[in-house]
């Protein structure tokens, strides 16, 4: 069974076709990339998969479930998590609370249990806190548990956001430009973190990225889209030398990467 199967997905904003005939097959365990120039429709594809937009055509199957019409939190509950291009942590909640709230899908208690502090409630609160600390520990964030995200440096906020996404125990983690805005010093750290997550958390990663260093270093398989259409796919080497990709990024002629 495939983890994620996208068949002929279309999406139009008004008259503009933002995504046209997008296909994807993830078996599970991959670390794949999605690249393309600005405005190519990459984030739209993420929004479609995570349930914020409804595709105007085609189907998405996540773990053999058709996600059409499902609210985003239901899709997350199925095991799909994502981050955002512009970091969307909850700025006024501590890092620990940020991670704890991401356990909502599996809380297993309701309002009344919360008011009466039932044994289930107390047990689950303890478990959630332990799990949150485990995640923070594995990403070396434990010292920041009581900090507010708005007080953290940018690079650290990126990692916290990834940690929060991991708290939903995803089978598929979608990273939307994780390297955007990072300094070159932070980049290598990010690459290591992503590789570590891929291995230790047994999670499939699908990322949008502009930084060629990150993409070429990490991804096993890359798709390149432009104007909503897939123009090339293949291994990093194949993509690097694909004339269509070069053309989409640089116009014509020379390709001088990194």
């Amino acid at each position: 069974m495939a983890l994620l199967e996208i068949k002929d997905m279309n999406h139009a904003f008004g008259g503009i076709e933002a995504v046209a005939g997008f296909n994807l097959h993830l078996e599970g365990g991959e670390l794949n990339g999605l690249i393309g120039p600005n405005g190519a429709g990459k984030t739209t594809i993420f929004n479609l998969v995570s349930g914020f937009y409804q595709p105007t055509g085609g189907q998405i199957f996540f773990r053999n479930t058709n996600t059409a019409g499902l609210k985003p939190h239901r899709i997350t509950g199925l095991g799909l998590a994502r981050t955002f291009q512009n970091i969307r942590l909850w700025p006024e909640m501590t890092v620990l609370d940020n991670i704890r709230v991401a356990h909502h899908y599996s809380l297993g208690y309701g309002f009344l249990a919360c008011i009466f502090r039932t044994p289930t409630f107390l047990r689950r609160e303890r478990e959630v806190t332990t799990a949150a600390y485990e995640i923070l520990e594995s990403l070396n964030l434990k010292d920041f548990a009581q900090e507010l995200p708005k007080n953290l440096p940018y690079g650290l906020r990126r990692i916290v956001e990834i940690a929060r996404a991991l708290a939903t125990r995803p089978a598929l983690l979608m990273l939307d430009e994780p390297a955007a805005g990072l300094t070159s010093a932070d980049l290598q750290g990010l690459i290591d973190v992503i590789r570590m997550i891929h291995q230790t958390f047994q999670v499939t990663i699908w990322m949008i990225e502009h930084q060629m260093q990150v993409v070429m270093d990490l991804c096993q398989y890359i798709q390149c889209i432009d104007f909503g259409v897939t123009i090339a796919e293949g291994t990093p080497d194949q993509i690097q030398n694909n004339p269509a990709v070069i053309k989409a990024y640089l116009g014509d002629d020379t390709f001088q990467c990194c």
Partner: protein
Amino acid sequence: MKQFSIPAVLTVTLVTLVGISLGEGINLYWQDVIMFMGINIILSASLNLVNGYMGEFSCGHAGFMAVGAYVSSLVSVALFTQSSLFGAPILSSGWAVPLFPLCLLAGMAAAAISGLLVAIPSFKTRGDYLAIITIAASFIIKSAIENIKPIGGARGFMGMGQVTAAMSGTADLPWMMFWVFLGVVFTIWILRRFVSSTYGKGILAISQDEIAAEIMSVNTNKMKIVAFMLSSGLAGLAGGLFAHKLGYVNPGSFTILKSTECLVMVYLGGMGSLSGSVLSAVVYTLMLEILRFVIPWINDLLRWAQLIPTDYQVTQIWKWVLIPLLLVLLMQFRPEGIMGRHELADYFPWIKKFYRFR
């Protein structure tokens, strides 16, 4: 030790309040002030859940208060008193004390259900548009009550005085003081437990980034329903206490002015701070009462200084000029309210040593 400190303090306070009310250590006027203070605490804390913690702008709190006031009054009057509307009492007056909380609960339930009137539109819209929906909802509730003739229409509904009289028949205690105190404790207890749990923190997440909340598996629609229903239900509790305290209700008590008072208390205390809400309700109520004494003094002073014409009196209406003026000034100097987003324990960490909250 720590886990007993809060119950101990509460019990002592309750006994003191009831004791001095009974022994007439304070006169009826100040007893009333304390009760209104309690009702205001319930109102501001419950509105803070939606306006502070969830970051919506609900300005129709008085409407839900009205629903609670009427429903609990109708239930208690039907159960315990002889009335023209319901006829003979269903139960003997001895039941009034043990069953009174059920009357309040009925009011709460009705108010919570009327909260759906604004909870459902909040799925699709937020901010200013939702503010209008809440105002419209409170107008609708008030107008609907005015048009139901059997419960008195615009003239109002009475008979709750007999209910409190029935309670006094069982034991001669200041019962309303007792119930208001319990209501306040119940409200703070329920809200504190809700917002300090991982479940309840979902609404904080909604206020800070709704989209991120949804993608991080928070069922935003359900959380909104819970928050709105809890908030309006507690407003209904305040309404029920208010109605039984006064002995009568009329729709004129639940105008937009009442909603404005609730809003003022929330923002005066600080959005998303329970202790701020309690504090601001106390301060606000006291301010109202102090001005009642101060205004005649101002009148005499101005008369003495011959600053006002002889045929002019500085009346109590000036209270409603001075209070907004004070608040406008306060907003200029401390735009985040008394407590900001923090609780008392954030400012005075040492008090954490004396209690434990579960």
